[in-house]
């Protein structure tokens, strides 16, 4: 974990209520895709946890949806704004768990961490299939960016206004034996778990006090004891979850 001041390089709308923000600053604490940052906002007491979508030696890209006061504030921040962030939090996706190919499933704003993951898997020479689920055409983002990386991408929308009508579970490939990685709303994650079983890694969300393991605010019971979503997670092996 690193605490530092990060400067907004860009902050643009990429879908309905969804923004992509690029921050510049120290990224040395980021060790794996699926980790998150915790952002201090003016007049807000608690920090806002947001997944790392992509990172370079000196930039971090995040994608966030405006759902309340904090994210609404973020959407209005001009380039050059400085933000106090805790960076490189949590345990992310383990790319070593998949063999020669991997199935990535992102739902809504659960999609961003899949981007950094796809990049890392492709760098390891793996075949990557990305299934994205959104509510409607206006919500779709990053489809082309995944394609540009060299991943195979299929999109589903709940109302059928873009791609296949339905949920990501309606566009699953024939071969269900491939290792999967997923992040999205809980009902989607549970449906995937039901359809694909425990050979996967799942990224979860919880309300957080600290984001770095100090308060026990985000604890969860698993088959192998109590885990903190912010520290041992947010990414967990599907086979430890008590979801049966």
């Amino acid at each position, binding site marked *: 974990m690193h605490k530092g001041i990060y400067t907004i390089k860009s902050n643009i709308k990429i879908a309905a209520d969804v923004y992509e923000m690029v921050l510049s600053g120290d990224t040395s604490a980021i060790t794996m895709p699926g980790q998150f940052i915790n952002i201090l906002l003016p007049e807000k007491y608690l920090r806002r946890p947001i997944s790392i979508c992509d990172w370079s030696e000196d930039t971090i890209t995040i994608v966030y949806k405006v759902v309340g006061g904090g994210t609404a504030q973020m959407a209005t921040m001009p380039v050059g704004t400085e933000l106090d962030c805790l960076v490189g939090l949590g345990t992310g996706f383990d790319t070593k768990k998949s063999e020669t190919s991997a199935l990535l499933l992102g739902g809504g704003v659960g999609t961003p961490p899949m981007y950094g993951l796809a990049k890392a898997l492709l760098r390891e020479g793996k075949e990557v299939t990305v299934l994205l689920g959104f509510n409607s055409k206006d919500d779709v983002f990053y489809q082309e960016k995944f394609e540009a990386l060299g991943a195979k991408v299929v999109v589903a929308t709940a109302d059928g206004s873009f791609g296949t009508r339905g949920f990501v579970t309606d566009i699953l490939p024939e071969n269900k034996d491939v290792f999967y990685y997923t992040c999205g709303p809980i009902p989607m994650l549970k449906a995937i778990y039901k359809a694909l079983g425990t050979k996967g890694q799942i990224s979860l969300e919880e309300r957080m006090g600290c984001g770095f393991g100090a308060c026990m605010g985000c*604890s969860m019971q698993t088959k192998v004891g109590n885990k903190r979503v912010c520290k041992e997670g947010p990414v967990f092996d599907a086979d430890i979850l008590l979801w049966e």
Partner: protein
Amino acid sequence: MLTTTLCGVELKNPIIPASGTFGYGYEFHELYDINILGSLSFKGTTAEPRFGNPTPRIAETPSGMLNSVGLQNPGIEKVIGEELPKLRDCFHGPIMANISGFSLEEYASSCEKIDGEEGVAWIEVNISCPNVHDGGMAFGATPEKAAAVTKAVRAVTKKPIIMKLSPNVTDIASIAKACEAEGADGVSLINTLLGMRISLKTKKPIMANRMGGLSGSCVFPVALRMVWQVYEAVNIPIVGMGGVTTAEDVVEMMLAGATAVEVGAANLVDPFACKKMIEDLPSVMKTYGIDKLSDCIGGAHHG
């Protein structure tokens, strides 16, 4: 210049991370050398392991937060067998052991177990947790019950005992007095204030436990007032806490009557909060013409 003496034990400075906001220390030791701290109070420990309450356990408030963690901890045996040795490896100063319970017997048995532990300088007896039913806060709710816990704990340990008081009472001074009368060596206050939030989106309470304890900068004036009242009522030292965020807050708490100061929620927002306060204290003291920090204790009451 920064030293203070709490129940006969000297601290290099009055800054103590508060129970429940600093784990067992080692998470923070990865960030900075926690040996700069005066002491630290570890996570509230009960006789048996506890998972605590269902999540969500956290809600934000203006200038503060609510938590309903509900005393998640691995139980006294594991704390003594695993957590304390790990903590002693990285922290060599005096440790404050925070103990909670659901019956007089449980308080006494846990305190008896911790009594022989090296490095533990004080036992902070939590009779004020708002997040557990039929226990915790109930003991801090009346002078009679607070006295009963103090008596039970006093009988089993020679270590100084510091009773941690609840602000969710009508007259905190009478409870502090009852603890003093039964042989408490000190009192610490305040624990969190019972509160709640409701989501307009779901029209339901945000936290699974519905209610939780309020802490953070918003409670500072309430905490300060209670430290003031207790200082007027007892002759034993007070550990002041509730919303302390800056070195100025530390001095203000001490002027109200605190011998040492615990820092809770501020650690969660800024993991370096305690370090920063310790570093800032000398310049704040200089600004306000304070040579020796301990001279401030209760300073606002005199003259």
